[in-house]
Every structure is written in C-alpha cells, then in structure tokens.
C-alpha cells in the first residue's frame, strides 16, 4: 500500500513538472511573437530558439522563425523554417504563400528530376500508413500473436479460429514492422537541407581542392545523401550531386 502511494505521488510530480515545462514553452513563444510584432527580430529569434531547444515544435513556431529570419534578410534560414512549418502543416495557406514568396527570391532555377516509380510507391505507402503508425500496429499484432501462442502453450487451449488469428497477426505484424523499419533505414522522403551561405560550390570530392561541379546560392533546397560533421554529399533538384561543407547547410 505504501508503495502504491509513493508511485502515485511520483506520478503526480512528473505530471506537474511536465505542465510547468509546457507553460514555459508557451510563455517563450508568446514573448517571441510579441517581439516579432514590435520588429525586434533578433529578440524574437532568441525566444523562438529557446522554445525549439526544448524539443517542442509546431507549425506556428517554425513559421514565425521563418518570418523573423526573412525580415533579417536571412533567406536560407527563412526557407529552412518555412519548409519545417510546411512539413508539420502542409495545407496551411500562410505557410505555402510565404514559402513561395521566399523561394521567389532564390536565384537558382533548376529543373526537377522526376522520382522513379518505386519511390512513388514507397511515398504512397508512407503517406497512407506513416512509419510510426505502421510500427505501432505491427508491434500490437506481434504482441497479439505472442499472446495467443503463449496462451496456447501454457493453457493447452486452442481452436481453429485462434490458430487463424495467430497467423494473421503474425503475418500482418511482421509486414508492418518490416515496412516501418525499411522506411526508417531508406526514407521515402530523403533528408533535406537548405543552403545557408550566399554562394556554395559543389565539389567532386569531399575537399575544397577537388574539381568544382556547380555553384548554387542561398536558399536552395537540396537532398542530403550522406553526411559527416565536415562534408555532406548532396543532390540538387536537377540530379547533380556533389560534396559541400556541412556547416553551410541547414537541415530541414
């Protein structure tokens, strides 16, 4: 009984702490928004970055960060946070409109390479059954199968329906888990990043002395194929690939 009381009190403490954390996040967001309204863009960014550092995210937070960066003429950062906002809420008109405005200032104009068919199928699958949802359902099916098997094994209780149920749970669970893990290892939507420097040169090798491939400019969204702390292997929209210094990119 004593143990139960202690656990209950600890749980209450945890909930209280979480609530106070949430309150601080909202307060910081409101302070940043007020600074943004007043035109104090640096102050606004400081507040928003404080919220971002807590691990909380929202389309409003990222949109306002993009707006503050845009007002400070940080085109790359503006596009980066607007892309983040779009990732969280791809239907919001304000986000889409502002992203178009920011991208209209981007100087690079590349044709977009079409995705292969298998990529489209994978993206449809991920859009239909998101990775974490697939994993959760798969794990539940897997648990169901194991539970049924355990009952059968320990209680010597079995029937045709239970046997069919176990097999369906096993097949469905494994399929969903494999789908989730495969999409995690080979993402349907590859990691993307935004060019933050005014001008960036893609090199054939991960060295500034290597031959130059092409020059791109601030605000261009690239796909990151491989990354290390120093160099990243990126692909621009027309399919051209090359190495760039990692610090010149901002992840989305």
């Amino acid at each position, binding site marked *: 009984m004593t143990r139960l009381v202690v656990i209950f009190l600890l749980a209450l403490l945890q909930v209280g702490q979480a609530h106070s954390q949430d309150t601080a996040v909202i307060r910081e967001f409101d302070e940043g*928004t007020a600074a943004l309204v007043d035109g104090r863009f640096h102050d606004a960014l400081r507040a928003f970055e404080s919220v971002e550092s807590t691990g909380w995210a*929202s389309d*409003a*937070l990222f949109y306002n960060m993009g707006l503050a960066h845009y007002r400070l003429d940080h085109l790359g950062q503006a596009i980066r946070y607007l892309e983040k906002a779009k990732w969280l*809420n791809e239907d919001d008109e304000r986000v889409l409109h502002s992203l178009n405005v920011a991208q209209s200032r981007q100087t690079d104009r590349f044709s977009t390479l079409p995705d292969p068919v298998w990529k489209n199928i994978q993206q449809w699958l991920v859009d239909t059954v998101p990775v974490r949802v697939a994993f959760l359902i798969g794990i539940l099916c897997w648990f169901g199968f*194991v539970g049924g098997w355990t009952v059968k094994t320990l209680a010597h209780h079995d029937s045709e329906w239970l046997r069919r149920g176990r097999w369906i749970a096993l097949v469905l669970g494994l399929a969903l888990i494999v789908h989730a893990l495969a999409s995690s*290892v080979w993402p349907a939507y590859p990691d993307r990043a935004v060019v933050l420097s005014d001008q960036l040169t893609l090199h054939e090798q991960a060295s500034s002395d290597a031959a130059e491939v092409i020059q791109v400019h601030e605000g261009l969204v690239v796909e990151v194929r491989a990354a290390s702390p120093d160099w990243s292997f990126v692909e621009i929209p027309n399919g051209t690939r090359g190495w760039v210094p990692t610090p010149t990119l901002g992840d989305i």
Partner: protein
Amino acid sequence: MRLMHTSPLWAILIIGMALLTASSSLARQVDVHASVDATTIGTEESVSFTITIDGSDGSNVQIPEPPEAEGLTILQTIPRTQQSVSIVNGEMSRSFGFTWVYRPTAQGTARIGATTLTVENREYHTQPIQIQVIPQDQRPARPRQRDPFAQAFRNQFDQQADTAPAEPDETDLFIRAVPTRSSAWQNEQVVVEYRLFFREGIQLRQSRLTDSWDAEGFWREELEVETRPIPRIMVENGLRYNTIVLKRAAVFPTRAGELSVDPLKIESEAMMPFGSRDPFRSLFSMQTRFTPVQLESPEVTVESRPLPPDAPASFNGAVGAYAMTVNADRTSLEVGESMQLTVTVTGRGNLATMEAPVLDIPAAFDVYDPDVSTLLDRSGDLLTGSKTFRYILIPRTNGVFEIPPVTFSWFDPGVGRYRTSSSAPIPVTVTGTATSPLSVTATTNGLPVDDFAPLFTDASRWKQAEQGPLHRRWWTWTLMFLPLAVMGGALVWRRHQDRLVHDPRWARGRRAHPLSRKHLKQAMELLQSGDTKGYFEEVERAVLGFVGNRLDVAEKGLTRHQLDSLLRERGASESIRTRLQGLLDLCDRGRFAPASFSPENKEEAFDDASSLIPDLDEQLNA
C-alpha cells in the same frame, strides 16, 4: 593664337604682356632645342638651322656662336632672330629663336654640330643634326617656310626650287598615334592620342575621316579635343613641325591578350608653301597647289593582362582609382514611406560599364531598381567622372533596422592590387503599422503579394520533435524482441510443468525441500499452541518426508535400520546418519513422553531438523 613680332602693334602688345608677366617669367621653365627645316636637301638648296628657346623672350640670352658644320658652309654668321608669343587655353607662352642658313659643299652626309647657349646665366647644349645632301635632280619637293625671314633667305639662294609646286611626303605630313601605355590590366584605362604633324607652311583644308575608327576588344570613350586647335610646334627628328591633336580616346581592354586599335585615317587637301614670289604664278597656280593627301596613323597594340585571381567578393570588374560615398536622405520614417539611399562612386576608370554595388538591404524593405546617372569628364588627360545609384527603399513593417555597410571593390592598377571601400552601417527606425496600401496588393486569399503572410499569434498544435529515425531508437528493438523472451519463458515453463507431470521421481525431488519447510512451519505453529506431541510428529514428518522424497521411497514402511542402510548406500556419512537417528529418537520420546521436555529441548529438536535437512540434501545430491 600666335603673334609674330614683325608687326609694331604686336610688338607693343608683346612688351605689355611681358611686363605683366615679368614676375612669373623667372619661374618659367626654359627649353632649348635645335632644328632644321629639312633633313634632306639637294646640292643646290640651302638648309635653315634654328635654335629655339621656349620660355624666354630673348632678353637674357647671349647670341651664340654658329655651330660648326661638316659638308656645309654657313652663309651668314650673324643669326636671324625671331620671337613669338602664343596664348593657348588662356596660358601665354613665349619663344625666341636664332636661325642660320647653311649651304651644302658636297653631296653626301653633312652634319651640323652641337652648340652651347647661355640663357639667364645657365648653359644649354643642343644636339648635332645630320643632313643628307643628294643630287638636285633627285630632290623631292619639300615645304617652304612661310617665315618672311626664311623667304627672304630662300629668295636669295634657292631660286631654282621655286619653279615647281611641291607635294608633301611622309616626313612633311603624318599622323602619330601615342598610347599612354602599351601594356595594361584588363579594363584599365589607356588613352590613345592621334596627333597630326605637318611641316611649317603647309596648309590643310577639307580634312575628314575616311573610315570609321574602331577598337575591337576595347570599350571606347572619346575624350575632348579642341575644335579649333592651335598648332603647337614640336621638333621631331631634328625637324620642326606644327602639330594638332586630331583625336583622343580612352580605351578599356575588355579581355586579356594582345589587342589592336585601328589606325586613324583621314583625307585632306594640303598645300605646300609658295616657293615663288612671282605674283602671276601665284595667282594662276592657287587652285592647283592644294594636293589631295591620305594619311593613316600606325596601328596601336596594347597587351592586356588578366586581373589577379584574389578578387574580393564585392569586386564587380571596376579598374581604376575610385572613392565611394553612401548617403540616406532620412533614417526615420513610417511604414509605407520611402527613403532614398544614394551610392556615389567617383574616380578614374570605366564608369559607363560599372555595375551597381550589391546591397544587403533588410528583407523588411522593398527595394526598387536603382536610378543610375553617370557624369563623365572628358576634358582632362584621363576619363574621370562619377556614377550615382539612387535606390528607393520602402519599409513593409515597423522596427529598428540597420542597412549594412555598402562595400565596393576595385582593382587599382597603380599599385597592382584590389582595394575595398565600405560605408558605415545606417540605422533606420520605422514606426507605424501597415495600412491600406498593403491591402491593395493582396491576393484573393487576403495574403500580401510579394511579402509574407501575417505571423501566427497562437500555437495550438505542439508536438515533440522526432529524436531520430525509428531504427535507431532503443525501444524499437525492445518492443520487437520482448515477445520473443516471453515466448521463451512460456516454453520453459511448459516443459517444466510437463516434467512435473510425467517424471514423478524428478517431481518428488523438486518438491522435497518445499514440503519439509511446510512441515517445519506447521511444527512451529503447533509448538506455539502447546501441542507438543503434534509438534514432534510434524518435525519427524518433515525429516522423514524429505528423506523419502530424496530417496524416492515410501518412508512410512521403512524401519530405522532400512532407512540407515538406504542412506548409507546413497553415500550419506556416518555422522549425518547418527544425527538423523538421534533426531528421530528425540521425536519418538517427544511424542510419547512430552512432559519430560523443557521448552528449550523442544526448540532444540526444531533447530536440529532445520540444519539436518539441508545437510542431507547436500550429501544426497553429491
């Protein structure tokens, strides 16, 4: 304007001017040079040798001795003097000259030697001049001095040459192209001057360019020349020439390599000076003495070098010497009002093609394309001027902003390196809020055209940011493999249960110990309740039950002797068998004569049983 001293009026004027400028004449630079009127003469002709003293009125000049000559004989040792005053662009210049006339003594190369002249107590030395003396019948026509003194001398000694009109040759009339430099950096300014040289006495009329002048590979800017030029006397190869500047052009190489500027070509009509003083001859030959001539300057070649590679980021191709200023007409305004940012670049170089400096205006401002105005000064030796870029900035939102420094870089050919000029940052305070003008430029959704939508004032949909891909999370693999552990555990448990059912011997062995503990616990409860007999029965049952389970025999039918034998066969030691027999005897006494036991004796039996059972278990398992 040139005045000859032969007119009394001019002489008075000259004297007046000389008095007015007497104080400055001392400081004026004196230049002495010798010249002849021809470097090639016929055996029957004469040649005039003149020493000209520029910058002197002759007042402090000692009459020099005539220079010695080889192959020539002097006709008169006392020199003829001449003085002239010129006013060019408002600046007066004077010169004084001594002229001797020589006549060749033989065909071949003649030479007039150097001489020394003292001007204002300072000695000047002239250079010797060589003269070719050729047979008279090979003598080409040559110009004649318009100078009355020269005419006078010539009429005395050169009557024969006046009989036919002369045509100018390439030494009488030519165009010289002089670039300021023959090697230049790319886009560096090079001024090419085309100067017409013509011998004194030659008259020109109806001059015009015959071909369009071009300079491929260059950006070209014309420089001003005088529309009514006054000839300037220059000595070239010992000959005196009148010169005028025909054209001056600033050219800027647009690429590296050897580049050429086209020759300048003109057509004109030239008239050699009259050689005859016969009025009838002069009258009837006037129309025919102008001879058509075509002149062409040499081609000018400029070696253009590429600019060094270490150009700063703000460099946009400007080469020369520049200075930049940046001004804002206001630094405090309201949303929607405009301010003007003016960037002015002044200096020497190719201002026409200069691009606007890159501005880093905050995004809160709408920036319109600059209004560009260029002001070029073509009157100097080099092309100079200024270029002004006027930007209109309109803030879209309020706040305190800073227009970052405007940076302009250029290549300075004088020192051979890049230079950069940066302005100071300009703070701008914008007050007020966006008003109706913005709504005019709104989309159908009410969002501003070409600007961001309003900010989010409320955030309701919060979520924890993802901490990484699924396959890198520890709980992913825990959730996947935990059921396998459960399955393994269930399988083990099932097999255990099955063995308990199907293997009684193993099951009794597994049960031995727990049953003994159960009986001992019951014995203690009986002891505490005062049931001594029941207590000893439970103690005996615990011990014998354990032994029976371990030996897999029915312990109730065994005698003490049989029990001892079985234990001995299973390897139990003598001492533990003795302890077992002693405990069983004690239990028998306790059951049948319980009153003889003190409470300590009773508990001693319990302790013996508690220690004996593990010892037996150990030995029987060994």
